[in-house]
């Protein structure tokens, strides 16, 4: 989308995302049904999905601490989203952050409607609000894996709320906020609409369901966290195998199932494209799981369950930004590449630099997110089975250049890395100064469950 300037007045007249003027008839109950279903699926993906995926990977003395961190973070961020997150992310403001229109959800009623990606098609804004809430909630939860098994519970909550406010919300605004397709009536209006969109959106970066906003964003915060937190006591000497691999497998499976809500719901409509997003999400994941575990089989002698699960998640991450723009064969290619590269990141990169990213948040989410974001530019190309990019002014698919799109994607990746990295450094430093990051060595040895939460997982 090109960006030109337009009198501010006109820009403000465009009803960003919500258009009360439209009649409710523009809302199809089939879309609403799918959006609500998708929202429930994203919740399933977080609790219990992500919680189990992470919980199974830690030692049994820390499983409750991980479950608790994921569960309560989800709850706290949900409230923060209702109070200010949604407003700052999804109402008009500047290119970096939204406005105050929806603070405390004011003005958001059962009648409010939000734009989709098709002209004249709307969904209830309340459904959009709650769907986006689940994205806002899962993203900080992802970070938990990086510093698992050693942080104070209070430090985790405070940091994640800080990071949500200063990194998630603005990045979501930068990548996803736009005026909606109906604003693109002609070239001039399109330019005006473009100018009020988020910064990364304006650069033309594509991110269908959160490769940058969710995965790179949280992956970097994880890496910074792993470094700030330091290694776990005994790391590299004592074995730290997953305490319950079936739990990891349940978690990975629920992540997969829930991810259909995540990716397909992001289409906002229940149409043919939704089905294609579904197929892409399935095929990329399957390919990545096969790639990771077969690579292990060849190089290490056995295909592991943890590898298959990790590969699946890597594939899910990588297809996330791409899923609405690529064809199924492109999705398979993305899955294979992401599976192999994330495996390399998790084994080689981590060993090389010696940081203790407990559950490989960086290696899977950040690396997978970058791989997916860049490959989006490649396989989006109609020449490679992709959809190309739709020009809402011309009402047709625009001419496509892989190189040009790659530059746009690099903007998205780069800005997200820098922004989240900076916010994370500030956040961890602050929390370390205020509360302290780590529990005592004694507590770490005994396990966080009994000491931080006063409970034992299994009796």
């Amino acid at each position: 989308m090109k960006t030109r300037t337009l009198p501010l007045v006109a820009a403000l007249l465009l009803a960003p995302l919500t258009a009360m003027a439209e009649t409710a008839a523009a809302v199809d109950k089939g879309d609403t049904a799918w959006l609500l279903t998708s929202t429930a699926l994203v919740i399933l993906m977080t609790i219990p999905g992500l919680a189990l995926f992470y919980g199974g990977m830690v030692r049994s003395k820390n499983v409750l601490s991980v479950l608790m961190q994921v569960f309560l973070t989800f709850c706290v961020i949900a409230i923060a989203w209702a109070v200010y997150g949604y407003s700052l992310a999804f109402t008009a403001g500047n290119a970096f952050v939204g406005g105050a229109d929806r603070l405390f959800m004011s003005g958001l009623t059962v009648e409010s409607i939000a734009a989709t990606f098709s002209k004249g098609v709307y969904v209830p804004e309340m459904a959009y609000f709650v769907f986006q809430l689940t994205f806002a909630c899962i993203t900080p939860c992802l970070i938990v894996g990086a510093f698992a098994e050693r942080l104070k519970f209070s430090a985790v909550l405070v940091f994640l709320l800080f990071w949500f406010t200063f990194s998630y919300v603005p990045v979501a605004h930068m990548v996803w906020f736009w005026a909606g397709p109906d604003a693109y009536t002609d070239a001039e209006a399109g330019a005006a609409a473009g100018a009020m969109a988020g910064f990364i959106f304006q650069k033309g970066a594509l991110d269908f369901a959160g490769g940058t906003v969710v995965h790179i964003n949280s992956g970097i915060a994880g890496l910074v966290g792993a470094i700030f937190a330091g290694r776990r006591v005994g790391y590299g000497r004592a074995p730290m195998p997953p305490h319950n691999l079936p739990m990891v497998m349940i978690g990975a499976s629920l992540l997969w199932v829930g991810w259909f809500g995540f990716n397909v719901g992001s289409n906002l409509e229940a149409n043919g494209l939704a089905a294609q997003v579904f197929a892409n999400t399935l095929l990329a994941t399957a390919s990545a799981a096969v790639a990771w575990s077969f690579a292990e089989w060849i190089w290490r002698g056995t295909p592991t369950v943890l590898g298959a699960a990790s590969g699946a998640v890597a594939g899910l991450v990588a297809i996330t930004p791409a899923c609405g723009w690529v064809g199924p064969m492109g999705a398979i290619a993305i899955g294979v590449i992401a599976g192999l590269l994330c495996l390399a990141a998790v084994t080689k990169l981590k060993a090389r630099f010696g940081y203790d990213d407990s559950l490989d948040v960086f290696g899977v989410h950040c690396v997978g997110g970058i791989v997916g974001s860049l490959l989006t530019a490649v396989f989006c190309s109609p020449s490679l089975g992709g959809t190309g990019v739709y020009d809402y002014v011309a009402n047709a698919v625009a001419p496509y250049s892989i190189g040009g799109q790659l530059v746009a994607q690099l903007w998205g990746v780069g800005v997200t890395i820098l922004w989240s990295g900076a916010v994370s450094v500030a956040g961890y430093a602050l929390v370390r100064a205020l509360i302290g990051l780590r529990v005592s060595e004694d507590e770490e040895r005994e396990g966080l469950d009994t000491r931080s939460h006063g409970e034992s997982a299994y009796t």
Partner: protein
Amino acid sequence: MKLITAIIKPFKLDDVRDAIGELGVLGITVTEVKGFGRQRGHTELYRGAEYVVDFLPKVKLELAVSDELLDQALEAIIRAARTGKIGDGKIFVSTLDDVIRIRTGETGAQAL
């Protein structure tokens, strides 16, 4: 009275129990243990991390027997537990000063 402590392969438990059952020994206490010995373990791989697991699952049997039954019991255990492969396990014999049956308060050989 003697206490026989035998560390055996888990899948041999039923055979050993049957063998000593035939001798009329009526009680055994069984513990799941991990053994470290000549038998090699295996390697486990979790993403980047490789662990050598050389503690292998074993079963520990404890049975108190009268001095007369000792040799027969040892023989029976050895016969039933032997596969001839490394890791078949060990038997320790020690002396008991006394045995008491809690239910009745009986002591000594009576209590077995």
